[in-house]
């Protein structure tokens, strides 16, 4: 009789532990979502269903302003970082292996490894200096900073796709009279497009979620949704924060589902 040599489900209590971990991960979010529809002020007692807090949040100009900032920054940062990540991925996969390739990978993925707070402090110093000398205080700083730490999130799916791609397709294009640029335009890019969109989505979500770096380098009036909420929490816990969080969660879920659909292997 054929028997698998080892299955993790044979371990006693495996399922129990797995369920508990999932509960610990997702229960708080469920609570958050449920209480965003609570009627009363209290964050701890259920007083009936209502959309009041969504209305309150939506009527708040600060929330509106923060939402606009968040979307502008996330959109710009996603586009910028995805473009750079695409170039980086092409540069690291479509050429002969070179000295220091591993080092380049590490450099590109640096934001994943360096503690964010360190990057934040460093950026604070640099942006402060630039602000002082140029006088520019727009969203540009946040966009560039976000783009920088979003690069690895966009880079990884794009590189994975490029590495998984059948190189004979590019050879075949060259064989059929396509110049290197035409090969890229007509073969590589169309096949890469899903990964590029997926990378952009991950970058967008990552930017949307950022608190630490934003908090350090934003100028007055440049709150994003996360930093706005953080500010609110410092004063008093209001359920409109639940509503905003739930909206963010919903947006993230939509984008991540799209990401999943795009990176999923066809057939």
């Amino acid at each position, binding site marked *: 009789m054929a028997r698998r040599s080892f299955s993790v489900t044979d371990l006693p209590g495996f399922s129990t532990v797995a369920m508990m971990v999932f509960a610990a991960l997702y229960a708080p979010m469920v609570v958050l979502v449920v209480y965003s529809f609570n009627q009363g002020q209290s964050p701890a007692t259920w007083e009936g269903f209502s959309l009041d807090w969504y209305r309150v949040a939506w009527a708040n100009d600060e929330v509106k302003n923060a939402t606009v900032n968040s979307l502008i920054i996330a959109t710009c940062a996603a586009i910028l970082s995805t473009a750079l990540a695409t170039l980086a991925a092409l540069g690291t996969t479509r050429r002969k292996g070179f000295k220091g390739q591993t080092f380049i990978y590490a450099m590109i993925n640096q934001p994943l490894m360096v503690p964010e707070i360190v990057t934040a402090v460093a950026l604070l110093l640099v942006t402060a200096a630039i602000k002082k000398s140029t006088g520019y205080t727009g969203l540009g700083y946040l966009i560039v900073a976000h783009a920088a730490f979003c690069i690895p999130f966009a880079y990884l799916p794009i590189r994975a796709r490029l590495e998984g791609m059948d190189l004979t397709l590019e050879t075949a*294009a060259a*064989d059929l009279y396509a110049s290197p640029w035409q090969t890229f335009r007509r*073969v590589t890019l169309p096949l890469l497009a899903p990964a590029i969109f997926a990378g952009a989505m991950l970058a967008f979500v990552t930017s949307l979620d950022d608190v630490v770096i934003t908090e350090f380098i934003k100028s007055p009036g440049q709150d994003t949704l996360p930093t706005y909420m953080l500010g609110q929490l410092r004063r008093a816990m209001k359920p409109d924060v639940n509503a905003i969080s739930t909206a963010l969660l919903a947006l993230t879920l939509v984008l991540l589902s799209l990401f999943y659909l795009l990176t999923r292997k066809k057939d």
Partner: protein
Amino acid sequence: MIKNQGGTGVGKTSVEARQIAKHFGQGEAIVKALDNVSVEIGQGEFFTLLGPSGCGKTTLLRMIAGFESPTSGQILLDGADITPLPPNRRPVNTVFQSYALFPHLTVAQNIGFGLEMQGRPAAEVKDRVARMLALVKLEPMAGRKTSQLSGGQQQRVALARALAPTPKVLLLDEPLSALDLKLRKEMQIELKRLQTETGITFVFVTHDQEEALTMSDRIAVMSAGHLQQVGTAREIYNNPVNRFVASFIGESNFLPATLEAGKARLKAGGLVEVSGAKGQTGPITVAVRPEQVRIVAAGEPDALPATITNLVYFGTDTHCHVDLADGTEVVARLQSPATGDAGLERGGKVGLRFAPGAAQVLGD
């Protein structure tokens, strides 16, 4: 280096490889994939590169296509040196072993790709694609994605795509190896038909000797980065230049011997007429095809004494294994009814003769 027997066989030269060498890696780990290979392929010829795995067939093909540049030597097309040209500037197309069809394009778009890249007008592309679809009998599939096709259909799309821009040379790297036997036979006929109809020079890679023998105008037998012999199927089968060719193409019996006044004195005794002797001194090898070996009654004049060790029935043929006086094993391929009549049996004493002109002296 082995001389190209009988020139290109057909008129003008299409592709010429001049002293091509290709080395991969360096120092200790160097791989000499091709070592000083020179060959001329005639216009409109069906030319086959045949050899065991790793002998450098693909490497030579990639060099003609421009995917790889030679370590030394030149590739000429219609007399012009194309060695420095990138693949997209060579009027040469490839049918890849894996087909390499573009998965994001339809069948028609795949076939039209080369024409479009050449900047041909849309109307011409459309017209030519339609004709190619008809040529490979895939008209109903024009709008399909290539992933929705069977292996044989994908194969035909790959062919149509490579033929559409009317290349001067079509390179095919084991294009049939992914197909099952029946489809393979069909495609062999189909390929030969396409080649005759289009008149394009085909350079075909295979390690299947039967495929090579049945399809090719000429065959180049390769081994370990060297060309062993170039010639028509008949030349190569009937006059193999060395032991490698004799055993790689069909089967052969090898008999140790020495030359004696133009005849071969076999180690097993007996003097036989041989062809291909070039005045060698010292030990030589004589090759005889199994179907050229005759079994006669023991003691007949000029017959080599032999003992039957085994009889293997193959339907139309029976293989009769015999041992000569010195223990050399020889296989004779006999038509089955003959063996039945002759009353051959294991352990029987018989005589052995070779058909006239069958015994060949091999080079090294």
